Every structure is written in structure tokens, then in C-alpha cells.
């Protein structure tokens, strides 16, 4: 229908450590076609884009441009070949003006800037997109939508033939989405091939000509939009084999520990309501950008909520600082263990005892290092942290062992509510099973656990109930029997229940 494809990915595979991120994926992009790429978190979409834009190299497979094999070694090479990508967060130089931002990638034009010509060309490109923007205005202060337009203009100035849009609508209002789609359709009519990635199914069905679905690094289906229904798309995205299904014990007690009602933080999330009982694991499911972490941070006082109530043990509380949260028995193990979780140059023992140092004082007020070491030894045994000694700096441990040190640190605060944010991301299968065992053991001891995880099978296997979020809103709470991958994905993508059942 469109003749020959511009860009063809043939049998692309790529491995990262133990993860097969892409496994023999083939994809053809035709000029004048909007091609939607769907998949759960970790399905391989990002890796595929990064290979197209030269950030990663495939382990095997071929990339053909106009039918000829090409090698894309860097984003610069990708741009020269006419392949560009724009992301959810536009890449802007805030102190440069619109025109400069559009032409920033144009090197090799001699040492002098021809300002008049640059402004004229910038205006031409923007009018081609039917967008009105002052090209002399600095990028700082432009709305996200306007910044995206500038990015699209930048791509156009480079004679783009393949435009990859990675969740471009995530930060836009409905009206801005309409405008963006008008631009995208105009580009399509000009013969640009567009690869469109979104977590919003209704958008995909509104704009895409073809829908391709990835799951676990494999291509599951690729068909014209007319042949795909939302139900089928969701089924194809979910349907993931649950390996390592963890047998959870029934540990939920009657006593409600924390009641959250209508919790919100302006501009971030709102209307979050749930109960957690002692011994219960409440899973938080959702796609990237669902704002689950922000709810965790609010409960821990890092970025406090500004509306709604939190009731602990029957008392309404306000939590504005981590120290306060810890006093109420709340602990939060961050997803970003290197950035937010651990003090890498410090020893295992010093990391574990840090939040609770006062527990290790002699009557004179001095630290009992032996006591610290024995606490660390206890967790080293309990979580099987593999290290020659607890005095080793954390920076020298493997990812899985670092994760265990961070968990030890928070377990050592003896929490009653433990918030685990992506506790198994980036760790190997063995360590993952150990973390799952730990969660089950803690629940059996009566600890309430909020498990935020993008690994849907993990959430389903570990949780007693699952709260689903989408774009800062609560889409529903499913108990263990109701929670299926299809239902949770449908909720996470904003599809109503009736669509899937």
C-alpha cells in the first residue's frame, strides 16, 4: 500500500546480562504510516527504540534503510540517516531561544551564525507544522507541548524520515494532545514514518495505522488497526508466563494498621484511598508514570501529601518528614538504591545502622561498633548477603547484595508498614526469590507491606490485594481472586472493566 519500507528491523536480538531484552524482533516502518508500538513495562520497547537511534547496538539482526543494510553507531549517525526520537520529557536548552533550539544539532555550518537565515528557516518549519510560536522567545517557560513542537521542528530541520515518539502525550492535556495529533497527522501526510509509543490505548486506537505488540522481548502481533480490538491488544500484552510463582501464605490479620483516604499532592496524584492490614501485602500496579512512587514518598514524608488523611492505629497523623514517618513505624526502601538508598563509600554495617544510630550508644553516648557489626551479621545471615565481611564498603557489592543491604537497613528500623519500591528491579533470579521469601516472612510476622512493582507477575504473585494507578489516579483495588493480568493492565491503561470482561 505504501510501497517499500523506509526502515526495516530484521530479526533483532539484544541481551543485557541475564535479561534477553529483545529476541528476534522484526518491524517495518513505511513512509506515511503511523505505527504504534505497545507493550508492558520491560517488554523491550525502549531497547528497540534505542537500537533504532544508535544508543545500543543489536547483538544480532539487521537494520535496513531503504532496503540497504546500515550500521547505526550513535544518535548522531541516526540523525544523519534521518532517524530522530522525541521523548516524554523534551530535551531543551532553556536559555537558548526557539530558533536556536531547533537548529542546535546543525554543526558544520562554519563558525558564524547567520541569525537572519536561522530565524527565517525556523519560522518556515513551524509554519509547515501550522504552529505559531515566537522563534526569538527563550525555551524556558514554554509549555511541555510547545517544547515538543520545538523538538519535532528540530527533527524536521534534519530532514527526518523516521520519527520515533516515546510517550509524547504523557504530560499533555487533552487539548494539547489534539494539537499534537494534528501535527503528527500532517507529518504522516508529508510521508514521514512515525513510530508511536503510548500507554493510552484510546490514543493508539485513534491515531495508529498499524499496531505492533511486544512482550518479553518478543514480537507477539503486528496488524492493521482495523484488525485489532482493545481486548485483543491487552491480551497480547499480558499473557505473560508467570515464572517463579511464589506460594504466599495467608498472613493477613484483622487489625487495620493504616487507613488512607483521598490522599493527594497537587499536580502529582489525587484521590488515593486504601486500607492496609497487619500481615497484608498491598501491591501497587501501574505503568511507568502512574505516580505510584509518589504515593510511597508521600507516606514516608519526603514529598508530603497536601490533601486527604492518613490514619495509623486509629489516630489521624500528618507526615511531613522521614523522621516522623519512621516514628510511626513506616519505612520506605527506594527503587533507586544507588541514588537514594545507600551510602556507597560506607560499610555495610554503617549503612544498616544509619537510620537507627541512637540504638547503638553506650551510656556515655559513644557508638558501640561491635553491636553495629553484630546487627549487620544478623542481617547478613538472614538475607544471605554475600560478602567477606560486614565492614566492606557497599560500593563493592553486586546489585543484588546491595539491594539486600538496603532492605536490611529498613528492616532494622523494625517497621510496621514497609513500603518496598521495585525491590527486585535489576537483581538476578536467585536474589529475587530470596527477596520474595523475605516479604512472605515479614508478612507472617505481622508487618504490613506496600509493594510497588512494575513486574506484573510479581505483584500478582506476592500481593493479597492490588491497587492499580494510572496517571496519578486510583483505578481500582482488586483482591487476589479478581486480580488477573488482563484486568490490571486494562485498568492501568485506562480501559473500563466492561471492555475486558
Amino acid at each position: 500500500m505504501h510501497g517499500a519500507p523506509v526502515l526495516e528491523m530484521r530479526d533483532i536480538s539484544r541481551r543485557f546480562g541475564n535479561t534477553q531484552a529483545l529476541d528476534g524482533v522484526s518491524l517495518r516502518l513505511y513512509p506515511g504510516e503511523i505505527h504504534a508500538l505497545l507493550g508492558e513495562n520491560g517488554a523491550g520497547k525502549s531497547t528497540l527504540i534505542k537500537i533504532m537511534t544508535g544508543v545500543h547496538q543489536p547483538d544480532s539482526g539487521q537494520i535496513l534503510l531503504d532496503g540497504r543494510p546500515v550500521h547505526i553507531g550513535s544518535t548522531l549517525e541516526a540523525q544523519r540517516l534521518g532517524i530522530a526520537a522525541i521523548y516524554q520529557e523534551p530535551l531543551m536548552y532553556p536559555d537558548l531561544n526557539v530558533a536556536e533550539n531547533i537548529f542546535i544539532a546543525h554543526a558544520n555550518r562554519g563558525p558564524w551564525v547567520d541569525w537572519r537565515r536561522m530565524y527565517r528557516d525556523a519560522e518556515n518549519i513551524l509554519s509547515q507544522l501550522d504552529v505559531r510560536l515566537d522563534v526569538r522567545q527563550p525555551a524556558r517557560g514554554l509549555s511541555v507541548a510547545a517544547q515538543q513542537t520545538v523538538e519535532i521542528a528540530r527533527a524536521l530541520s534534519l530532514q527526518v524520515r523516521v520519527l520515533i515518539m516515546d510517550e509524547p502525550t504523557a504530560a499533555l492535556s487533552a487539548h494539547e494532545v489534539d494539537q499534537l495529533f494534528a501535527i503528527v497527522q500532517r507529518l504522516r501526510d508529508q510521508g514521514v514514518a512515525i513510530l508511536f509509543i503510548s500507554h493510552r490505548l484510546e490514543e493508539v486506537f485513534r491515531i495508529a495505522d498499524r499496531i505492533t505488540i511486544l512482550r518479553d522481548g518478543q514480537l507477539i502481533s503486528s496488524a492493521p488497526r482495523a484488525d485489532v480490538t482493545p481486548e485483543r491488544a491487552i491480551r497480547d500484552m499480558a499473557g505473560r508466563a508467570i515464572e517463579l510463582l511464589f506460594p504466599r501464605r495467608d498472613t493477613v490479620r484483622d487489625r487495620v494498621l493504616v487507613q488512607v483516604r483521598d490522599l493527594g499532592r497537587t499536580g502529582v496524584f489525587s484521590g488515593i484511598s486504601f486500607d492496609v492490614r497487619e500481615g497484608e501485602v498491598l501491591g501497587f500496579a501501574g505503568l511507568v508514570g502512574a505516580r505510584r512512587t509518589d504515593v510511597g514518598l508521600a507516606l514516608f514524608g519526603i514529598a508530603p501529601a497536601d490533601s486527604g488523611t492518613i490514619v495509623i492505629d486509629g489516630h489521624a497523623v500528618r507526615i511531613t518528614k522521614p523522621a516522623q514517618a519512621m516514628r510511626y513505624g513506616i519505612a520506605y526502601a527506594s527503587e533507586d538504591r544507588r541514588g537514594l538508598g545507600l551510602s556507597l563509600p560506607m560499610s555495610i554495617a554503617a549503612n544498616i545502622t544509619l537510620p537507627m544510630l541512637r540504638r547503638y550508644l553506650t551510656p556515655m553516648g559513644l557508638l558501640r561498633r561491635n553491636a553495629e557489626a553484630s546487627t549487620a551479621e544478623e542481617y547478613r545471615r538472614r538475607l544471605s548477603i554475600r560478602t567477606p565481611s560486614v565492614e566492606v564498603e557497599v560500593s563493592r557489592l553486586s546489585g543484588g547484595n546491595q539491594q539486600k543491604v538496603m532492605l536490611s537497613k529498613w528492616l532494622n528500623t523494625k517497621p510496621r508498614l514497609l513500603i518496598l519500591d521495585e525491590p527486585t528491579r535489576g537483581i538476578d533470579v536467585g536474589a529475587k526469590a530470596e527477596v520474595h521469601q523475605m516479604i512472605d516472612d515479614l508478612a507472617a510476622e505481622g508487618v504490613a507491606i506496600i509493594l510497588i512493582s512494575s513486574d506484573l507477575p510479581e505483584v500478582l504473585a506476592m500481593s493479597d490485594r492490588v491497587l492499580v494507578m494510572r496517571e496519578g489516579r486510583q483505578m481500582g483495588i482488586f483482591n487476589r481472586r479478581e486480580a488477573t493480568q488482563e484486568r490490571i493492565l486494562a485498568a492501568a491503561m485506562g480501559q473500563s472493566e466492561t471492555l475486558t470482561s
Partner: protein
Amino acid sequence: MSNRTVRIKVKTMTAWRQRIRPEQLRELSLVVLIAAALLIFGWQIENFLSARTFNRIATSVAIVGMVAIGQTLVVLTRNIDLSVGSIVGFTAYFVGSQLAANNAMGAPVAVALAVAVGGLMGLINGLIVAYGRVPAIITTLGTLAIYRMLLINYANARTVTVDSLPSWVVDFSRQTLLSIGDFAVRPLMVVTLATVVVFQFVLGYTVFGRRLYAIGSNPEAARFAGLPAQRLVLIAFTLCGMLAGLAGFLFLARFGTITAVAGQGIELESVAAVVVGGVNTFGGSGTALGALLGAFLIDLLGQGLLRWLGISEFWRDALLGLLILLAVASDAVILGWLRQLWQRGAEVNHGR
């Protein structure tokens, strides 16, 4: 080698490795460097290894070392205090002029005054950095100039002279507490050594010390652990100011004659001492002892090169700069290298 000897060797290696960490090796390597410098200078320069050289270095290290301890506290939190030179100068002059005006003032009052004035100046730095969120390098560059200006205004081109001071001040620095042969143990050095011992202890065995390392090595993780980062930074700056104030008193006792330029350049010397002494400029590691050893090594090299190659005083500053760069470069290289060795050893053990 029989199996048994291998096992014993591995065992002792393990025990040794568990006790000494690469970071402590850093202090050890400073001691080795100091010994090497002493040997070379002693061999090359006539009369270098004399009581006179020792006493001279010890007295000047006492002052820079005292400032360097405070600088260590600040650098541990990923900050820097460039105003210490002006604090030393201001307190030296201020306390000197008070003593000159009131000869009856006793030693405890004079010392307390020095510490209080220094502490106040440190407190101001700390407030601006921790609560005003102005980068430390900018803040203290500003207060470096401001405190110096205050001193110049206050001094109004006058000089505190030895004669105007009560005699105990000058005696304090000349006194010999204990002598081993010609090597004299002077009160200045004792005060600084005692302070090093105290802060070595504070850093190693108190909640405050541990928290300083924590906010330096990962401020975000420290926040998540509920540490009051702002207050800790404020305290670090205040203590740094207090120690600089104390150093100002030592300065007064050593020189007796104080002008408005007193203490200029100490900021650079203290930063050099701290960096050479193995305190990581990105925060999180280093000790008070290391900083003192760093100050000692720098002074030793300065004195030695001065006499050996006949380099001029002006070269000393260049030498300082060079040492800072070398120390930062070697920090990464040497430490990485030591770690690798350590790791290899650990793997051998682990494999067994």
C-alpha cells in the same frame, strides 16, 4: 609450600584485611611518604634531621593542623570553608588587642573569646550555606573577603605587638613541656594533637561523626534515613569556625605581632592539608588524623625543598597547588589500585 602454610597465610591475610581498609591504608601511606621525605632530606641536607627543624615544623603545623581539623568536618559534608584564613586572622587580632587593652585577662577567658568569635563567624557561614542554600564555595569566598575587611577596619592600620601582650601569651608558645634531648614538646603542638585525638574519636565513635560521613557520601540517602542534614552542615561550619578561632589564638601566641594580614593563605593550606590527608572532596571519607598528617607532609616538603633546592617562599604556594592536584589525582588512582589488590585478595579467600 605445603597446604598448611598456605592456609595459615590466607587466614592471617583475612584477619589483616578485615582490620585495615583501603582508606586506612591511605593514612599509612602518608606516614610512609613522610618517612621517605625525612630520609631523603636527612641524607641530602646537612643538619636537616635536627631538633630545630622538628620544632619549627611542629609549631607551624600546630596552627594549620588545627584549622585543617575543622576543614575536615566541613569537607566531609561535601562543602568547603574558604573563610578560615580570615577567621584565624580576625580572632588573632581581636583577642590580641583585647589582651593588650586588658592585661589582667586570664588565659581561659582569652581562649573562650577566640573560640566564641570564630564560632560566630562559622555559624554565619553555616546559616548561609545550610539554610540559605548558597553553595559553600561562593558563601565562604564572600565571607573570606568580608571577615578580612572587618579586620582591616577594626585594626585601622594598627598592629598588636608582643610588648603589649601579657607575658603568659608569648610564654605559652615558647614553653617546653617535656624535652627529649633537644626535641621540645611545645604546648601549641599538644593542644593540636589533643584536638586531633578528640575529633578522630568524634568522627569514629559518635552519632554526629557518623552522620557527617553519611550526608557527605550520599545526601539523598541521608535524607531518606531521616537525618537533619541542614542542622548537621550548620554544626560542621560552626565547629570549623570555632577551631579556626582556637587556631587564631595559637597564631597570636606563636607570633605575638599581629597585623591586618594575619592568617592570609591559611585557607589554601588547610584545604591542601585536608586533600593531601585523604579527605575526599566529594565528601564521605577522611579523618582528622589524615588531615594532620597531610599538614605535616606539606610543611615538611616545603621546609625541605626550601633548604634543599633553595626555592623561594613564593614557590611554596605553587608547591601547595601542585600537591593538591597530585593528591586528588592520586586519590583516585592509588585508592582504585589498592582496592583492586584488596578485592583480588578477597576473591581468593572467597573462592576457598
